[in-house]
């Protein structure tokens, strides 16, 4: 048992090291998040009124896209250099490694996004009552995004140019998170209670936490042996 | 002098928070822009010196 824990820790540390070694990797989902969000005022309309209506959904869509984009690299380099083969030939449970990698990924994307979201809120004139709802919903929702994304990443890892394919696979699964997440923010803005939405987001997280690592593990096995 | 008292000066006609916040930020940033290269320079020099010594011992 302690050796599995050890593996979890080592994988976590390894993935963080990998991310930190490229400092850019570290801040990129964040900056992408910011850029996407700032494209809208430019492309659509800079009017504060319009933007504040757009804000709850837009922040969530931006978070979703930022996660999605960074998702692709989750297993890619491990596949290419043969680390995945080694992983599948380990007597240790695969889902554990997946979970650990997702956790590291989430820290650097989802959690980071959650922390800068208020800045986006300000830029998009989100009423300040909406902020707690925004952060809470992102905090509960982004791990689910990472977990679901991991399944997509695992399924497409063996394909030579699966770049955009993963979006296709994963986006439909992201829709419930998007709906409840943006509704939670909207509720917060209009002063309605948001416990219900948060509970739903939490439930989805629990479900994803239980199933996604196993599904991703199985998908990895299929991708590599194919 | 545009202000009567020191309190007026701090208050900035009600805009004290904004003025001092931006000047605080400005001074902090400028200080960092000067301070960081200085300590970095110290660090570089130290490590280079250590290297030179190491090499002279080796040869």
């Amino acid at each position, binding site marked *: 048992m302690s050796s599995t824990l050890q593996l979890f820790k080592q994988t976590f540390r390894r993935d963080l090291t990998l991310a930190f070694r490229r400092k850019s990797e570290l801040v990129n989902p964040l900056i992408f998040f910011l850029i996407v969000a700032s494209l809208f005022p430019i492309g659509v309309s800079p009017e504060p009124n319009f933007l504040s209506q757009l804000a709850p959904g837009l922040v969530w869509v931006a978070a979703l896209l930022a996660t999605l984009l960074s998702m692709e690299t989750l297993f890619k380099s491990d596949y290419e250099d043969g680390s995945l083969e080694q992983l599948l030939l380990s007597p240790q449970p695969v889902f554990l490694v997946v979970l650990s990698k997702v956790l590291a990924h989430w820290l650097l994307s989802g959690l980071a996004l959650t922390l800068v979201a208020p800045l986006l809120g300000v*830029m998009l004139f989100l009423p300040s009552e909406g902020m707690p709802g925004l952060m809470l919903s992102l905090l509960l929702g982004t791990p689910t995004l990472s977990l679901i994304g991991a399944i997509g990443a695992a399924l497409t890892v063996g394909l030579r140019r699966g770049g955009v394919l993963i979006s296709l696979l994963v986006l439909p699964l992201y829709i419930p998170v998007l709906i409840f997440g943006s509704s939670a923010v909207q509720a917060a803005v209009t002063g309605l209670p948001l416990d219900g939405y948060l509970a739903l987001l939490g439930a989805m997280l629990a479900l994803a936490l239980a199933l996604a690592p196993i599904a991703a593990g199985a998908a990895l096995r299929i991708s590599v042996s194919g | 002098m545009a202000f009567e008292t020191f309190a007026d000066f701090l208050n900035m006609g009600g805009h004290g928070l904004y003025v001092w916040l*931006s*000047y605080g930020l400005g001074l902090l940033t400028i200080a960092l822009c000067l301070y960081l290269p200085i300590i970095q320079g110290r660090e*570089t020099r130290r490590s280079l010196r250590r290297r030179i010594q190491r090499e002279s011992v080796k040869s």
Partner: protein
Amino acid sequence: MASSWLPRWFYQLASPRWCYSITGKLIPWFAAIGGLLFVIGLVWGLAFAPSDYQQGNSFRIIYLHVPTAILAQSFYMLMAIAGAIGLIWKMKVADMVAKSVAPLGAALAVLALATGAIWGKPTWGSWWVWDARLTSMLVLLFLYLGVMALNSAIESETTAAKSTAVLALVGLVNIPIIKYSVEWWNTLHQPATFKITEKPAMPAEMWMPLLVMVIALYLVFGLAMMLRLRNEILTRERRAGWVKELLGS
């Protein structure tokens, strides 16, 4: 290599050693004059300049806001030109200048944005509006961040320098386009009363400290740039005899 029609100082500048020693001599002057002007400008602007009839005292932010905005733009130019020189004449020092300027330019852009945002709250009632100036400053910050991210993502110093130079040049070509497009797109800007182009509207007591601050910040950030440059020279020329002599004693 470079052809011979270039002036002699150009080649001297190309020598890291010469550059190291000349910046060593310049630094005290920059520090002294820059520091002095900075204090004068600060006190003058904060305490002595008359307050604005419309905005009251919040307008004193101008003495920080405008210089940083101007510097952020001119530092980008400096970075791109230095990069170009490095690319064309393979001048190492130019590469190092470009690299040292980028973080300072980004810091300046951040400052311009931050002071602008803070100023916006009392005048416009919100921290941020999607105005042309603001947007193009934001884009400038992104350009800086891109250059820095690319620079830190490439391990080899020489490759990083060349790559960032290409990026900075492409950005330079785009800056007028960006500026023009953004300005054209949305000029909800503040009343033009405060534009430097309409200087006469601003009394001398107001713009004199501004001028002092601009010069002071040029000197102070020039100083910071030289400090960075010297570190860069030392690290990259660590194998050179003169560095060993310099540090060995």
